[in-house]
Each structure stands twice: as structure tokens, then as C-alpha cells.
């Protein structure tokens, strides 16, 4: 399934900057970075709950926020893109 993850991390303190770095790192490991704090992940439900657990352990609920948008299996017709930084289709043909 395709999940869109976005986050907002409060970076006023050094601890906040560290949280941002850690969260970004976890997301980069599993997902495609489509914009600065927006990630598209093609994961199965088990992998997703693992990632979610990791992210929520790092994030501080009182200042940061994480949002998950479940785009499901038919995600392709729900996503459109305009402008620079085109993404790749993880289910399409990957030839470099």
C-alpha cells in the first residue's frame, strides 16, 4: 500500500533539530522523498507499523506532528505532480 507521510518538527531547540534529523533519516530509509518533509512509502502493513512506531518514538507529541495519508493500492490515480523534481514510480520499470 502507498502511504504519504508528512511531518512538522519544532526546531527551536537543539533537541528539536536532532529529532528532525532522526525522523528524516528514518523516512529516507524506507520512503521516497518527494518534497522536503513529504515522503511516499510503498510498504506492506507490517513494515508500515514498524516505521510508524519508530517515528512516534522519536517525535515529541507536544511540539511535533506527523500525518499519514493512506492512498491504498490504487494510489496512482490519486497523485498528480506539477513542476520540478519529478519522482519515480516504485511499481514501474526501474531502468537507470
Amino acid at each position, binding site marked *: 500500500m502507498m502511504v504519504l507521510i508528512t511531518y512538522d518538527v519544532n526546531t527551536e531547540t537543539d533537541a528539536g533539530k536532532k529529532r528532525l534529523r532522526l525522523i528524516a533519516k528514518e523516512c529516507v530509509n524506507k520512503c521516497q522523498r518527494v518534497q522536503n518533509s513529504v515522503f511516499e512509502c510503498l510498504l506492506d502493513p507490517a513494515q508500515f507499523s514498524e516505521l510508524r512506531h519508530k517515528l512516534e518514538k522519536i517525535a515529541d507529541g507536544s511540539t511535533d506532528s506527523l500525518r499519514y495519508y493512506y492512498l491504498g493500492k490504487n494510489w496512482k490515480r490519486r497523485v498528480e505532480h506539477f513542476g520540478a523534481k519529478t519522482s519515480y514510480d*516504485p511499481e514501474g520499470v*526501474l531502468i537507470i
Partner: protein
Amino acid sequence: MKKLLNVLYVTTPEAYLSLDGENVVVLIEGKEKFRLPIHTIESIVCFGFLGASPALMGFCAKNGVGLCFVSPYGRFLARVSGGVYGNVLLRKKQFRVSDSEADCVPIAINCIIAKLNNSRVVIERAIRDHPGQVDVNALKKASTYIKNSTVQLQNCSSLEEIRGIEGDCAKIYFEVFDELILHSKDSFYMRGRNKRPPKDNLNALLSFLYTLLAHDVQSALETVGLDPYVGFLHRERPGRPSLALDIMEEFRAFFVDRLVLSLINRKQITGKGFTVRESGGVMMDADTRKNVLMAWQKRKQEKITHPFLNEKISLGLLPYVQSLLLARHLRGDLDAYPPFLWK
């Protein structure tokens, strides 16, 4: 059922693969060109010579992602595999079966029956679809010959006999293969199989796709814990994945031959995309190779109902399913190995 994951093909010759966190990063001239989380793919096929970092190799081996290097023209060079894993009891059983000819024969017979059946389907399909354009008599004759051989095969008691029948049928099959090509016959023709290097366009295409298929089958066998180097019909030879070649027999006609025929007959590739080298070997240019890879990936995503499991699966999972069934047979859960019979 396992999910069919994607395959990353790296065809740029100067690409270098490295690992960053859990991502594969493709570097071209030191600059990051592409990045992809490794767990969304099941294997990487690399056509370049610069290769990959040891860290990436280790990560792939640990996570069960196949990493395979082939030369820019599709010839297999090496694959990276990690420590031995899987069930040791299953593997020992496989070795014991492989050592006794009496145990090998029934499995080998089933594989070859499937091979013959599936190549007959290719011929029969041409008779059905293009009765006006092909030499129906010759095709019918070949089809009947293969059919009779299938019956003969069931009474074989030695591997030598099986190999003999298989060889005869392959010869008959490739003799009429030329008939199945409906267009651009001057650039694509079949005058016998030749390889290492392939000497004409059609052989180049077939060899290229057989290499890709062998890679898929070998990865599938390793996934279920079988040793791809210990075969039943093909004898062991250092560096030869004999079991992968055994299991591949069922898929040759279904996956590769059919795809090659559609590519040619739909004019998706032309003779211009091939060049002959001084050595007499034929190679594809980058665009043709890309087209072929795209068609191959698309084909793997098509779905069929598996005749034995009665379950809908992607074609790309067939090698995995067959390996699973073979493992079940070796473990004693199934009385015989059910090969993949295409209808």
C-alpha cells in the same frame, strides 16, 4: 503469498552503486543520480563494470535482495550471495535425491514434460492465430512429434534417455521456430541455436532473456532454501546453477520465446538495434536493451491463475511458486513435483 517486488536494472555503464542508510544510491561520475529504499525491490541487475560497494553487497545479502552483475551485453558475470541460510535438512535431502538417479528421474521427467508441453503451446498458438501466414503442415508435424515424445518420456528410466528426447524435441522446435516469425524475416531468423557469443539477432535476444530468467529462478530457489547448484537433470559443474537450469526448462517457452516473438511480430524491436562485432557475436544497442527490459518487466506483472495452486499470481512469482512446490516435494509433503503446465 509473497508479493512481487520490483527489479532495479542499472544499464548506464559508468554507474556505481552504493549504500546510504537503507537506500541504494546510484552514482554517476560521483554525483547522486537515483536513490531508492532497498526493501521495495527484490533484486538489482547491474550491467555496468564499475560495480557496487561492499557495504551494499552485504546489505543486499543480509536482506535477501538478489544482486547480479552481467556484462553490458547481458552475459552473466557474478552474483552476490550471503551466508548459507535456509533449512539444512531440506538441502541435505536435495543432495541425497540428486545423488540417486532413480530419485532424479521422476522430477526430471516432470520438468521436461512441462517444457515440451509449453513449447508445443507456442507452436499451436501460431497455428491457431495465423493459419494463413505460417506453414501449418510443418508446424503440425513438429507439434505431433513433440506430443508423442511426451508420451515416450513418461516411460524413461534413465537421465540419458530424458536428455536424448529433450535434445531431439529442442531441435525440432527450433527448426520450426523460424515459421513463427511473421515480420522482418531478414533481420530475425532462426537457423539453429548458437550461443557464447550468439551469432544472429534472434539468438542474441534469446540468450539475453534466458540470462535474466536464470537470475530470477536462481534467486527464487535460494529464497525457499534450495541449493541452486545441485540439479537433478543437469549434472553438477563448478559455477553452473544446475537446479536453476532444471526449473528454468519449464519457463523458457512461456516466458522468453513467447515474449521474443511478440516483440518481433509487433515490431517493437527492429534489426537496426543490433550490431555485429568483429568476433561474429551480435549485441544489442542501449535503446533496444531498454525496450526488451521494459517488455520483460511488464510481462512479469501480468497475472494468471496457477494451474496447480488455483490461485491468482503475477507471472514474476512463478519461479518462486515452482521452487516452493519443489521444496514441498523434497520434504515429502507432495508425492510428485507438479511442474508448470501452460494451457
